[in-house]
């Protein structure tokens, strides 16, 4: 099957300091790809580059066959590429409902947006109860639900999540992962999941891209990584339990 997202030899960085070097991998439609690696591996930089917040210095990014080089950030979500940034990224002064509306403003079909919002409220019940509250009153888990729900209002084909489990209780993380697994099987949503929480990421991923110091050091089926202890030790020197 043709890749939904194809990353070829990508280099990028901040103000002339290179971070990513020759990053290459694919995301197939409807698959979950986990990007794993320790702090400073370039995982967040990778997502910021893919969504266009950082310019490429080399390589190409194709989404559904289209080269994204000339597509500005605000246009990428229209193609079906959604990015939930690190640290939740909810707009704290806006209410829950306003945050969700914001995710669908670019869409012309108002009824479709209303349907998508209703589905998000169904999926994340705490949000429905807090509709009219400003987002800064939400708990960490609720914020993550809001950020995720807001991305879903755009009905993306590929959802890029940056550390969704950061600072959340294990039970909440498990809930989020379950939601992602459900969405994937019911809507064919592909997910590019950046995580430090290796265990929860591998629990739903098909493929794992392992990064270290800005380079991809391995692309393996998640199955293999779950089973193979020696590989994991080789990459990290230890296994976070």
């Amino acid at each position, binding site marked *: 099957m043709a890749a939904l997202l194809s990353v070829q030899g990508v280099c990028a960085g901040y103000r002339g300091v290179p971070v990513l070097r020759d990053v290459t991998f694919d995301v197939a439609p409807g698959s979950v790809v986990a990007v794993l690696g320790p702090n400073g591996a370039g995982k967040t930089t990778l997502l910021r580059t893919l*969504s266009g*917040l950082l310019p490429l210095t080399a390589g190409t990014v194709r989404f559904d066959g289209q080269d994204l080089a000339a597509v500005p*950030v*605000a*246009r990428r*979500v*229209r193609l079906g590429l*959604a*990015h939930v*940034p690190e640290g939740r*990224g*909810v*707009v*704290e*002064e*806006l209410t829950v409902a*306003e945050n969700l*509306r*914001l*995710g669908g*403003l*670019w869409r012309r079909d108002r009824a479709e947006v209303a349907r998508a919002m209703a589905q998000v409220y169904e999926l994340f019940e705490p949000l429905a109860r807090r509709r009219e509250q400003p987002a*800064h009153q939400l708990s960490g888990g609720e914020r993550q639900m809001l950020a995720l729900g*807001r991305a879903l209002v*755009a009905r993306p084909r590929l959802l890029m999540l940056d550390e969704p489990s950061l600072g959340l209780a294990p039970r909440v993380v498990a809930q989020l992962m379950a939601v992602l697994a459900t969405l994937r099987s019911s809507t064919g949503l592909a997910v590019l999941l950046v995580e430090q929480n290796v265990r929860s990421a591998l629990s739903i991923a098909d493929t794992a891209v392992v990064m270290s110091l800005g380079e991809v050091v391995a692309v393996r089926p998640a199955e293999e990584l779950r089973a193979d202890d020696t590989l994991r030790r080789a990459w990290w020197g230890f296994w976070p339990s």
Partner: protein
Amino acid sequence: MGAVYTTFALSLVLIWRAARIVNFAQAAISVAAADVAWAVGSRVGGWWLGLLLAPLAGALLGGLMERLVIRRLGPERHLDAIIAAIGVTMVVQAVLGMVFGLQYRPLPAPVSQTVLTVGGVPTLSPYKLLVLGAVVLLGVGLALLFSRTAVGLRLRASALAPEVSRLLGVEVERMTTLAWGLSAAVGAFAAMLVLPTGPGLHPTAMDGVFLTAFTAAVLGGLDSPVGAVAGGFAVGLVLNYVTGYTDEPNLAPVALLGLLLAVLLVRPSGVFAGPTIRRS
């Protein structure tokens, strides 16, 4: 004239919220917009058409200023932007002087400015009632725009969280231009309302209003539209008391600057400023 100070203060707050810049060119731009509007209005349509045209001209000038000057400076150069705004003021005032001359040209009010006396008590003039009504309408309109419409939501989100907004498909640059245009439109609207109460049109005719409105906006907290409204009326009252009790109109600017200084010393964030939540 607290209502007009309020409106002009609101126009300053609009830009502050969108770009964290005090637009020192607002006075010159609003006069320019009023000049253009009156150049048409004095021939056809009168003051009323002028009141409609001034915000349009203002929006155009404000948007142009953002596109041609402010954007080129880049997002983090707030101090440079303020200096650039002062530069824009000088250019605009010089151009106005060349085109329209340096003498005051009267801008007549559409209705009487004679104070109405009801049962022996002097109240407001018909023109002041008109101004009050126009300002209330504008305030309600702006509140609805920001709270109820998609554009309002985009404007707020772009100001509060530009990067996240961009990721969600909001054209943030367009919203910034729009915010500058909207702000200048409100400023021009205020100019059309206030200029008939003074000697008229002149390149520097709005400078005094700017100073008053700036004090009002700072008093209310530059971030808060409600604060701008309250600040506008508070400053209007202070000015009336000072000039009314001392019978010395020249004290007004002194009182104003004293008030500005006091606010900056005692409570620089303003009386109505909430906690600031901003992120990239």
